[in-house]
C-alpha cells in the first residue's frame, strides 16, 4: 500500500509527464534519438510510454524493455531545456530510474558493483579510499613541492577547498588537468586544501540511479568534513560534482564554484595565450544546462585571447551513466558528433573530466580550460 505522502508524490510526478503535449520538439535535439533513429529512444517517446503505462505494464516484457530504455539516456537535460510545456523531464528520468531499480533490481545487477563500491569504499572504482590522494600526488609532488601539505587532514583549514571527485582523483588521464589546477592555485597564491582520502564520492552516480538514501549518506560525510576546514569557497572541476554540491548539499556560508567561475572572478586580465592550433569549445551539459554556468568559461577564454569555434549545445555521450549502461551507444553519440562537427581536426576545449574521458576515448584531442590558463599564468610569471 502506498502511504499518503508516496501517493501524493506519485500523483505529482504523473501530473508532470501528463503535461507533455507530445509536440515532438524534444525529439530531434536528443542525442539518443539522433544515434538510434527510432522514436522509443526520444524523450517524447518515453513520456508517451509513461502516458500509456497502464497499457504497457500489463505486458511484463514491455515493462522490462521500458526499464532498460530509461537507462539509455545521457541525462543531458536538453529535452528539459527545449520543453515549452513546463515538463521537468530530467526530474522524471530520475524518478523513473529509481522506480525501475526498485521494481526489478535483478535487471540492474550490473549497477550493483557500482553501488557496492560507493557503499564500501566511497568511490566509483572500488579502490581503497586511501588511494584517493596517492596516484596524482606521486605524479605531481616533485613539480609542486608543497602539494602533500595541502592535503587534508595534514592541511587543516583553508579559505578554498578543492573537491576533486572520483574521476580526477583516480584516473591517470586527468593528471594534466590536476597539474594545471594546482599550479594555477599556487601561482595565484590561493590558500587552498584538497580533501584527499576524506573526500567521498559526491553522490552523483547514486542520484542518477535514483538512490536518494545512498547519496544522502555520502553527502552527510562530505558536508561534515568540508565544514571542519572552515572553507569559504568550495571549487571543483567536475560539473557532475558541482551539480550535487550546489543543488543537494545546502551549504550555508560556503560558496560552491566551478573552477572556471573561480578563476574568472579572480583574474581581471590574463597574459594572452600563444595559440598554434585550431580550437573548438564544448559545453559540458551539467555545467551549461544544470548548473547554468555559461558565461565564465567563455569569459576566461576571451581574457586569454583564445580563438575558438562554438560547438552545438549537444551531449558528448558520456553522461547519465550511459558509459556504463550502454557504452556502444555512448561512443556512437560522440562519433556522430565528431563527424558532423569535424572534430578530428581540432582540439576540443572543455571543462569537465567526464567529457574529457569521452573525447579521449574516441581519439579526439582535448584540453581543459585550466590547461590553457596555467600556460598563460606561467608565461606571465616568467
Amino acid at each position, binding site marked *: 500500500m502506498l502511504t499518503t505522502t508516496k501517493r501524493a508524490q506519485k500523483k505529482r510526478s504523473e501530473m508532470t509527464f*501528463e*503535461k507533455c*503535449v*507530445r*509536440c*515532438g*520538439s524534444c*525529439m*530531434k535535439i536528443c542525442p539518443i534519438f539522433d544515434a538510434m*533513429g*527510432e*522514436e*522509443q529512444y526520444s524523450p*517524447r*517517446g518515453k513520456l*508517451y*510510454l509513461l*502516458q*500509456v503505462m497502464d*497499457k*504497457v505494464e500489463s*505486458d511484463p*516484457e*514491455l515493462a522490462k*524493455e*521500458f526499464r532498460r*530504455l530509461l537507462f539509455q539516456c545521457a541525462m543531458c537535460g536538453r529535452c528539459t531545456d527545449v*520543453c*515549452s*510545456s*513546463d*515538463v521537468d523531464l530530467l526530474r522524471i528520468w530520475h524518478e523513473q530510474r529509481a522506480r525501475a531499480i526498485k521494481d526489478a533490481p535483478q535487471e540492474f545487477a550490473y549497477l550493483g558493483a557500482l553501488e557496492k563500491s560507493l557503499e564500501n569504499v566511497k568511490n566509483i572504482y572500488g579502490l581503497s579510499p586511501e588511494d584517493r590522494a596517492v596516484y596524482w600526488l606521486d605524479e605531481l609532488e616533485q613539480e609542486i613541492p608543497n602539494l602533500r601539505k595541502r592535503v587534508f587532514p595534514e592541511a587543516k583549514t583553508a579559505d578554498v577547498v578543492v573537491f576533486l571527485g572520483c574521476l580526477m582523483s583516480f584516473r591517470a588521464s586527468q593528471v594534466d588537468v590536476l597539474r594545471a589546477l594546482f599550479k594555477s592555485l599556487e601561482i595565484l597564491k590561493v590558500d587552498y586544501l584538497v580533501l584527499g582520502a576524506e573526500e567521498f564520492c559526491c553522490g552523483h552516480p547514486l542520484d542518477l540511479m535514483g538512490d536518494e538514501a545512498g547519496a544522502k549518506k555520502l553527502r552527510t560525510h562530505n558536508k561534515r568534513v568540508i565544514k571542519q576546514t572552515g572553507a569559504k569557497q568550495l571549487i571543483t572541476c567536475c560539473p557532475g560534482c558541482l551539480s550535487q554540491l550546489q543543488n543537494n548539499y545546502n551549504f550555508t556560508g560556503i560558496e560552491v564554484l566551478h573552477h572556471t567561475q573561480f578563476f574568472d572572478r579572480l583574474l581581471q586580465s590574463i597574459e594572452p595565450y600563444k595559440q598554434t592550433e585550431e580550437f573548438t569549445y564544448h559545453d559540458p551539459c551539467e555545467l551549461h544546462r544544470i548548473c547554468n554556468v555559461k558565461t565564465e568559461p567563455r569569459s576566461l577564454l576571451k581574457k586569454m585571447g583564445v580563438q575558438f569555434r562554438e560547438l552545438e549545445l549537444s551531449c558528448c555521450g558520456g553522461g547519465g551513466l550511459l558509459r556504463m549502461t550502454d557504452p556502444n551507444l555512448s561512443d556512437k553519440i560522440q562519433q556522430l558528433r565528431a563527424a558532423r562537427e569535424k572534430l578530428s581536426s581540432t582540439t576540443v576545449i572543455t571543462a569537465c573530466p567526464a567529457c574529457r574521458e569521452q573525447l579521449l576515448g574516441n581519439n579526439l584531442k582535448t584540453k581543459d580550460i585550466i590547461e590553457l590558463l596555467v600556460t598563460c599564468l606561467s608565461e606571465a610569471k616568467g
Partner: protein
Amino acid sequence: MRLRDVVAGANASMYYRTDFRRIKAVYYPQTERDAVEAIAKAREMGYDVTPKGAGSGLSGACTGGNRDRVIITTLRMNRVLSISPDHTYADVQPGATPDEINAVLAPSTMRFHVTPSSRDVATVGGMLSTDSGGNDAWLHGTMRDNTLRAKILTYDGKQIEVGREGVRCEDTSLEDDLNRKALTLNDIADAHGLLGFVTELRLALKPIGDETVMAGLVECTDISELGSVVQDIISAKIPVTYGETVIYAHPDIRGSLNPPLLVLEFPEAHLRDLQSITRLRMLTREELAELKDIRLKLAKRTPKRGLQISLFEDYGFYGHNLSRLQERVERIDSYLREHSFEPLAKYGHAPTKWYMGDNTQANGIIMHSNEIKQPRQSSSDVFETAMGLVRLCEELGVTPKPEHKWIYSDYAKLARIRELREVIGGGFNSFILDPDCGAVLSTMIQ
C-alpha cells in the same frame, strides 16, 4: 510486440491512446526502395498502411485508427537530396523539416517559405498531407503553393509523380486514368495520406526579401476590432511578411501579453497603408523577436491545474465572420464553458490564407485554440464536446482548415478522395473513410 510498435502511437493530437496490439509492424525506411519493401510487406500481410511524419499535427490521422495496420514513419527519410543549380527548387525526402531544409540553404539567399510553429519537427511530407501554412502564408501560401511535385507510392508499389498540372507514371494506363480524373497536387494536399505514401517532394524556393521591413504591434480594444483590422489589411492587399495574433491567453500563461493583439512585420513602403488602417506601435528588433518567441511557445504552454488539450484546432474566420469575431469567439467560449472546458489560449496566423475542401481559397484568420481539461472529464465528454464544436462551426459559418474535416465532414474533399481511390487504389489510412471513424477516435482520448 516491442516498444517501437507501441510508441508509434505518439502524436500531438488528443487521439493518442491507440490499441497498439493492432499495430502489426513499424518501419523506418531511409530510401524509397526501403519504403517500397515496407509497403510490399504490408500488402502481403493484407494490412492497411498508415504513413507517419513527426506526429506533430492535431488531426490524429497518423494513428491509423484501430485497424490492423503497418505504420511507416518518415523520420529517417530526412535528407535534402539536391538543390537546383539556380536555387529555385529543392528535392527533399518527406521526413525533412523546414528548419533542416533552411539550414542547408543557409549559405544562399533562398529559403523554403512554409513556417508552421512546429517547423523544428514537422516533416514536409506530413505538412503536404495537411496542407500546412505558417506565419507568412498570407504572402507565400500554404504547402500546396510551395510544392512543385510529389512522388508517391501506391499500395501496389507503383510510383506516381503528381504535379500541379497532372500525373506521370510508368504505368501509362494508370497515368491516363488519373489524368482523366485530373489528379493534381491540390488533391494530395490535405489528403491525410489517404492517396499513398509520399517519398519525395520538389519544393519551391524563394529569395529572402531584400526590402527593408518594419514591425509593429496592434493592440485592440476588443476581438471584433482585431477582425476588422485583419479584414482591412486583406482588402488593401498589404504584403505582410509575418502576421500573428493572440486573441486570448489564460492568466496562467499570459505573462506580459495584453490580448487581443496582432504582431505584424511588413515592408517599410507599406507603413502608411497600415497606419491608415490602424494604430500601430512600432517594435524594435528585440521586441519583435521576443513576441515571436512567446507566440511560438504559446501552443505548448500548459495550465497550472488541469491539462492542456486542443479540442478543435484551426477555426478559420473569413468574410463577414471577421467583423463579428467577438461574437463568434464568445459563442465558442460559452459552449466550451457549458461543457466545463476553460479556454487556455487562442492565437494564430493573421492575415493568412488557406484552402477549402473544394480547393477554393479563403483569406482571414486561422485561430488555434487550446483548452484546459479537468481530470474528471471522460473521453466521451471530450469527444462529444469536440463534435459539438464542429456543429457550432457549421452553424456559425466558421470554416476550419480541412485538417479536421474528416470528423467535420468536408463532403467535397471526402467525395473527391473516394473518387480518386477508386482509380489509384486504397490501402492507406482507410479508417478515415470508415463510417465509425468518430467512434474509433473517441476511444483514443485520455
